[in-house]
């Protein structure tokens, strides 16, 4: 048993864990408590995954439930769909979001519509996990944030946690959800910080935004790794007397717009922060929702702080690509100073 897993076990179910360990805990919990759950992907068995998200699971649950697959992403998604339709609850890992594109045919043409096109005769309770985002100085094709591709597809859920506790609770919810869930894990957060996570099998709600901090003057909306910069920007703003409310969207599809609308009804100002490129990014959907349903609450134009509409840079420039605390503060100032 790997050291991390052993330590967690000894500490009697409450542990200080980072995000990748929280993912491991959630997978182990479901493998332990639901015989239909199986985990599959490249290098996830003996090696425990390239980020060690599945460390120790094969030794504990066997190679027929924690399955090293051949190197074939389309088939990983495709066989997971077949498994799900035949009654299993597969959790498939794609090693990086840069390699998720071969799965689009299977996910869009089959996973998302299995229940619909068979009138509920068959369904697709699967999870497709993938590490996403920039900021770990990874090689080419290892830093993408393509959540908008999946958020556009009817029948899917698109979920991104922003902390170990939410990774644990949301992954449990995703595995238990009766429909397909795309679950992106921000690589930059995998080992960035630890949180107390009680390994009690309690899921968090899907389709729900989380208000991380209440405030009066401004609503900051973000998800995944960018909540780190968003929280830091809020701290800096607080030092100048600005009270920012912070919302973690968590489930990008279906979108819990009500929580965002409620917040903006209070603050009148909104800045949306995401790492993915701007055009047709999920921020555009939120801004459109505010325009459609919250126009009269708005005291200033909605601001977006996003990745640029460029290819994700190689590591030397990635920090200039990702929204910075300064860019968020700048956008917040624009929203606050709008007459």
């Amino acid at each position, binding site marked *: 048993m790997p050291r991390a897993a052993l330590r967690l076990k000894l500490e009697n179910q409450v542990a200080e864990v980072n995000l990748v360990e929280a993912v491991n805990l959630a997978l182990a919990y479901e493998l332990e408590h639901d015989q239909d759950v*199986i985990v599959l992907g490249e290098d996830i068995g003996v090696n425990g995954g390239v980020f060690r998200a599945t460390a120790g699971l094969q030794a504990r649950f066997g190679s*027929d*439930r924690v*399955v090293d*697959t*051949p190197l*074939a992403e*389309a*088939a990983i*998604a*495709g*066989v*997971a*769909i*077949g*498994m*799900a*339709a*035949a*009654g*299993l609850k*597969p959790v498939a890992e794609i090693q990086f979001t840069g390699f998720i594109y*071969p799965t689009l*045919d*299977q996910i869009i*043409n*089959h996973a998302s519509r299995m*229940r*619909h*096109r*068979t*009138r*509920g*005769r*068959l*369904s697709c309770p699967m999870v497709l996990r993938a590490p996403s985002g920039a900021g770990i100085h990874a090689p080419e094709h290892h830093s993408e944030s393509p959540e908008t591709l999946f958020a556009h597809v*009817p*029948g899917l859920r698109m979920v991104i946690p922003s902390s170990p506790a939410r990774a644990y609770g949301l992954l449990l919810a995703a595995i238990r959800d*009766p*429909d397909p869930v795309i679950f992106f894990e921000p690589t930059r957060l995998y080992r960035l910080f630890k949180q107390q996570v009680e390994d009690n099998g309690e899921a968090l709600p899907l*389709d729900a935004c989380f208000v991380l901090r209440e405030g009066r003057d401004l609503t900051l909306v973000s998800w995944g790794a960018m909540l780190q910069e968003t929280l830091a920007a809020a701290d800096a703003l607080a030092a100048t007397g600005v009270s920012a409310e912070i919302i973690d969207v968590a489930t990008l599809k*279906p*979108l*819990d*717009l*009500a929580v965002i609308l409620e917040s903006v009804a209070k603050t009148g100002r909104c800045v949306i922060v995401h790492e993915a490129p701007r055009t047709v990014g999920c921020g555009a959907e939120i801004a459109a929702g505010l325009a459609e349903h919250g126009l009269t609450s708005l005291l200033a134009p909605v601001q977006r702080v996003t990745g640029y509409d460029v290819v994700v840079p190689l590591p030397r420039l990635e920090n200039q690509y990702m929204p910075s605390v300064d860019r968020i503060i700048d956008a917040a100032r624009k929203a606050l100073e709008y007459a």
Partner: protein
Amino acid sequence: MTTVATFEISYTQFVDAQGEPTQPLPPFATDPAALIALYRAMVAARAFDAKAIALQRTGKIGTFASALGQEAVGVGAASAMRPDDVLVPSYRDHPAQFVRGVTMVESLLYWGGDERGSGFAGPRHDFANCVPIATQVCHAVGAAYAFKLRHEPRAALCLLGDGGTSRGDFYEGLNMAGVWNVPMVLIVNNNQWAISVPRSLQSAAKTLAQKAIAAGIEGRQIDGNDVIAVRHATEEALAKARAGGGPTLIEALTYRLGDHTTADDATRYRDVETVRQQWQFEPIVRLRNYLARSGGWDKDKEEALQRECAEQVSRAVDDYLAVPLPGPDAMFDYLYATLPVALEEQRNAARRFAPQAGEPSG
């Protein structure tokens, strides 16, 4: 130099194009009732096919993919299955689906543009028609993996076409099936045409069956117009699969006597005379000839059967035409297990703007 690997691909046929046995028949085929059941299923499928094309021409259904000339592949394969095996079809496999218990009404609903056609009441665990070519191979591997994991003596039977063997999902799925030794049978319905592209432009491989060899599994070729060969080879492969012997790929040689679909005109790309010659190999006449010689099949029985099949199809068409259009909620009802709150507003809009009773729709 040392030879490190060799392979052979066998070819199996029991009854030739004239209806003459070319070798002793397998045990099931010595029972005339079993053969008549296969014959009936093929005749019914062909009667359905002809009617479906006519319905498309008069606007009663949408685009339809005929299985004309390939009835033996679907009927032979499905007749070898047990009820709890799982069929993973392409979109040209209504002959197999009918044997499994999908109704003609349901098939007409599907081609008529109604999702209820894939919500069939029959084999509830069978997969629905698969349109994106060869993607279903992976589903069959996954379903078969589930059976193996749960120690269930079941198998997945996947059907795809010759064109499908060029796609990545075919190779990826076949490869995984081999590595995991899952209970799956993959039948390549080699009808020689992928819309307008002939088999010769699809692959330089001498057989499509040999593609199995690269995945480490058994590949064999059969006469796909000989329903006895199809059923026998499928039965053997399914028995092997259920017993833990792993997957098999069966290449069934047949010919697409019709257009690709009703939206296609095959005279644009293939010679009418070649197609005419292929009619001498089609599956129904040869079995009729064999039955006439060995099982006492005669003109009266034939006429009765044709009449019975025509009536069955006619009833199905009446029932199909009587199915009321779905309401707007049908777009939302099965998208998720429970409709997300975010979609309620859109469903309400669809309800508000839906045509009222008596208004034209669709």
